[in-house]
């Protein structure tokens, strides 16, 4: 794969996120959570972002997926600037970029069945209800879920099954970028392994192939799964590179502490 000539799927330039102070205007209590972060994500690549709680990982993701407004900088998805996208534009963007969150059960509507939840994006993009149901069952099978669970509600299935359904839902619109924000942190290690294997397999398939932005605080998992890693500390990137190189020869003091913390 000649990555040099490829256009990045995601380009983040000088992205800065500031939580406004008291009453939304007190500059003394304003807090810069993400401070001029820049990186690129190439097609088919899996980029990990690690850092401790409060390092700005989730703020960074929330700005990329437009849940938060950036104070400065830009986010370019597939060549299109989405930094200030709103309304209808966002709907289009979410066909290229999908998310899998930490708590699978909470990310589904509790009053709708799994197949309903998985097919929602498809119905919104103009597919008929019947077609959407058939496609959601295909996606469930693809993600290793028994199609009999299609009629189940999120609380009726296990955390691992629900996370598989969340991945199926994310893949329904054939995104170019999948953002996993601590997607395996709430799962048991055995289930975590299954989910990682599933993501790895899906990513390498030509038909479903997508890039992954993998936010995680488990360095061992990042080493196992990601092609490249960014270390975030106090909102800044302190180190960037291949996971093996960073783990074996960390340059930054913070990265050293992070690795020493792994039990």
């Amino acid at each position, binding site marked *: 794969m000649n990555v040099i000539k490829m256009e990045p799927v995601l380009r983040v330039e000088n992205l800065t996120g500031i939580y406004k102070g008291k009453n939304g205007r007190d500059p003394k209590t304003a807090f810069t959570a993400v401070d001029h972060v820049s990186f690129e994500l190439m097609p088919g690549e899996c980029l990990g972002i690690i850092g401790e*709680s409060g390092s700005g990982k989730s703020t960074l993701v929330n700005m990329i997926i437009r849940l938060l407004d950036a104070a400065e900088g830009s986010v370019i998805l597939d060549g299109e600037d989405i930094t200030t996208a709103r309304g209808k534009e966002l709907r289009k963007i979410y066909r290229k970029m999908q998310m899998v969150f930490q708590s699978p059960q909470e990310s589904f509507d509790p009053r709708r069945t799994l197949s309903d939840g998985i097919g929602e994006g498809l119905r919104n993009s103009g597919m008929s209800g019947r077609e959407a149901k058939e496609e959601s069952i295909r996606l469930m099978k693809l993600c290793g879920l028994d199609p009999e669970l299609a009629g189940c509600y999120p609380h009726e299935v296990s955390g691992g099954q629900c996370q598989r359904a969340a991945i199926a839902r994310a893949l329904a619109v054939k995104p170019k970028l999948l953002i996993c924000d601590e997607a395996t942190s709430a799962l048991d*290690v055995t289930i*975590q392994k299954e989910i990682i294997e599933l993501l790895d397999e899906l990513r390498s398939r030509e038909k479903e192939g997508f890039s992954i932005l993998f936010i995680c605080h488990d360095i*061992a998992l990042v080493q196992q799964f990601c092609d490249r890693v960014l270390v975030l500390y106090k909102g800044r990137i302190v180190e960037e590179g291949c996971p093996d190189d960073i783990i*074996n*020869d960390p340059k930054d003091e913070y990265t050293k502490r992070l690795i020493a913390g792994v*039990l």
Partner: protein
Amino acid sequence: MRGCTCRQTVNRCGYSEGDEIMDDVLRYDHVDISYNGRKVVKEISFTVSEGEILGIVGESGSGKSTVIKAAMGLLGQNGLCTRGDIWYRDKNLTELSAEVLRKLCGPELGMIFQNSGASFCPVRTVEDQLYESVKAHRPVSREEFRREAAELMRRTGLEEGGRVLKSYPFELSGGMQQRVGIAAAMLLKPAVLFADEPTSALDTITQKQVVEEMLLIRKTFGTAIVLVTHNIGVIRAMADKVLVMKDGIMCEYGDARQVLSSPQHQYTKALLEAVPKLKINTKSPVHLERSLAGHIGFL
């Protein structure tokens, strides 16, 4: 099951106060627990000696938290210990009245929860709440309490004890809240400390601090700790003995080193295989540092 000693403890973690063989402080004897008439925990037996750390490991829903809740009387209205005995020294906890058990919970049996921050009242300072919990069990003046709390925090490696006491829970980070939760349990100097996923909500750096703090507590006070977690790394760093559970049943029980290095049960093997391991080049300086810190070479 009786007769476990703290000699292993001396070798592993430097708990050196009791070189002589100690009696078990906690003993589960063929315990079954049911919720709404459905058996969720079956035939659990283990012992914990003074200063010993037992790790209970298993996936969600395996019944590991239920096991420790039974000892603390926290099974709720629908939960019941249907068979077996839970002995704390010479008291059978399953037969005690709620009132007697309540008196034991705190000074004899302490508990740390996964999210200690949530167990504090958000509109009262940490000091007010800790003082209230100590005062409920023994008469103590505010001054005396402050001295004791500051001393405990110092001994358990919690810096800025004074500031922490004056803070409201939301003013502290997740890791700090968890350490305050540990301090709250330890102020009453319990003989047994139950810890239910104490590090699961924390990042690796804070997790390490909490693990070190708990080891220091064991070393300083000789507290026996029952640690429930799904994090094998935490078990590896802390536990002397380990109990592996699946679907409410004990799969494997024994010396932590032995179970983690040569698991016998199929499930334990699968569990250990699934744990993501940090791959470090043996020539890397990181490898040397981690070897010195005891993170490598024990699995």
